[in-house]
């Protein structure tokens, strides 16, 4: 077993995984996933529920061993050098994993003491993090009484006690209101400014668009696409034409004419040439379909998602 990192002197990537496979029973949760995150970058992992995002995070955070493939975090192998990896990482899970019976301060002190800080050092670190996440007022109250946003901030603070170089955020804003979500985004931006590498899983395309330098779309355990947000948007084509038939009964017919599936009462198709929309609208008109509205717009990550996974978010 090598004592140091496997890639000394070539630490371009803080997180690197190749061919990750994980089966639960005979059902593969991950079926050959490659991923990479550069030091100090934010890698966004997108995918519908059950796509394998959480499984990937659990492997990278040393909580589960892959059935095949390998992963390095900070250059250390997550299975063979799990102890080294644990010294580098922080994890904020999908379900806030703070001890609800403890106060904010006590949760932070617990982490500090476990990590070997002296009592005064642990107190100082706790105070610093409470201030940074605006939790000073709630510091003395049990976490069970915190709001969703406060709890998530405490969870993030707890995972930062060790000053991790690589941070895994597994759906950190699921269930938060827009204000709380924005606060968490700011916190993530501050961390990356300090050079922390972040792997973030999310179901929110806006979140990925806001935070991630690179994106990975996972669907049914496989990588459906990878690239920068801009590159992925380009995948969905240039402009898009959205049409909404007045009568719901016409929806299917409109879809057939335009060659796309209707989602939420709207048929959306990529536009390759600006002569296409008038032709498309004429074709619908000729078929006797009355439109409630039509619009030409630039693609969003939603479209990428739809194109890649066939699922609308």
């Amino acid at each position, binding site marked *: 077993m090598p004592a140091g990192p496997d890639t000394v002197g070539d630490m371009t990537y803080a997180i690197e995984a190749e061919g990750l496979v994980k089966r639960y029973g005979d059902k593969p949760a991950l079926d050959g996933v490659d991923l990479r995150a550069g030091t100090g970058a934010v890698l966004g992992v997108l995918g519908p529920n059950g796509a394998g995002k959480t499984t990937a995070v659990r492997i990278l*955070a040393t909580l589960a061993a892959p059935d095949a493939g390998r992963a390095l975090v900070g250059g250390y192998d997550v299975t063979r050098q799990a102890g080294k990896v*644990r010294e580098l990482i922080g994890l904020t*899970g999908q*379900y806030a994993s*703070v001890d609800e019976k403890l106060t904010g301060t006590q949760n932070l002190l617990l*982490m500090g003491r*476990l990590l070997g800080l002296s009592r005064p050092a642990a107190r100082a670190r706790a105070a610093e993090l409470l201030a940074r996440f605006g939790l000073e007022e709630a510091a003395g109250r049990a976490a069970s009484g915190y709001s969703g946003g406060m709890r998530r901030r405490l969870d993030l603070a*707890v995972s930062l006690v060790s000053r991790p170089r690589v941070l895994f955020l597994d759906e950190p804003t699921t269930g938060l209101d827009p204000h709380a979500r924005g606060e968490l985004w700011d916190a993530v931006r501050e961390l990356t400014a300090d050079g922390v590498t972040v792997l973030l899983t999310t179901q929110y395309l806006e979140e990925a668009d806001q935070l991630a330098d690179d994106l990975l779309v996972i669907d049914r355990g496989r990588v459906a696409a990878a690239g920068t947000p801009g590159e992925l948007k380009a995948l969905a084509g240039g402009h898009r034409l959205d049409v909404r038939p007045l009568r719901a009964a016409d929806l299917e017919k409109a879809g057939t004419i335009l060659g796309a599936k209707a989602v939420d009462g709207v048929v959306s198709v990529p536009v390759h040439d600006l002569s296409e929309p008038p032709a498309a609208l004429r074709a619908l008109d000729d078929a006797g379909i009355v439109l409630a509205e039509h619009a030409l717009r630039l693609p969003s990550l939603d479209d990428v998602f739809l194109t890649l996974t066939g699922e609308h978010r």
Partner: protein
Amino acid sequence: MTTAISQGLTLAWRSLIPLRNSPGQLLGMLFQPVFMIVIFVYLFGGAAGGDRAGAVAYMLPGVLVQVALMSTITTGMNLAADIGNGVFDRFRTMPIARSAPLAGRVLADLLTLLITIVMSMIVGYAVGFRVTTDPLGALAGLGLVLLLAMALSWGSAWIGLVARSVTSMQGISTAVLLPLTFGSSAFVPATDMPGWLSWWMSVNPVSHLAGALRGLLTGGPHGSDVWITLGWTAAFLVLFVPLALRAYNRRVR
């Protein structure tokens, strides 16, 4: 090794904080023996119409044993809760000794058990119970309760580690502990019982523990009870410690 011990102690401290944060829990620990004594001495004892001092002398050791054994449920429940809500996973991603979370839990529960036993004795003294043997014998009796309860906490830990949820953990343990505690001579002597019940009461380790404690606190024959209780304690430890450790290692791998 020393870091593993200090991490275990830190995690034990963590498990005891809730007692300090919410004194209501301590009050609950006091309430349970009071409740049991009121039921068995004043309610049932009153109906049976015996003398009250005699009833207290017979019942208190039984109540103490019952309260101590029921408190072992918390070991498994707290482990199941930590696993269910992600606290356990957080510990597993940290560079700490693998054994620390389990060691911390067991240590904290041992201390809680000690508090429970002391509280039951205080309640006993308040309603007129008196140790009529010597302090050393009394301490030995309480130590015996602590030992058997600790052995059973390992069983509780095992169930907590393999159970799918806190609720199922609670259900399983209650189903095991109720016949153990109530189907014993902790509260009623095993006379005038149907054959099968008196047979069960005579093999039930809780009967022997209650008998041993009664003898050590208030006198009377108890020699064989002490040895049988120690034998059961050893058997439970031999059975449950490896099972719990195996389940734990599976969880922390």
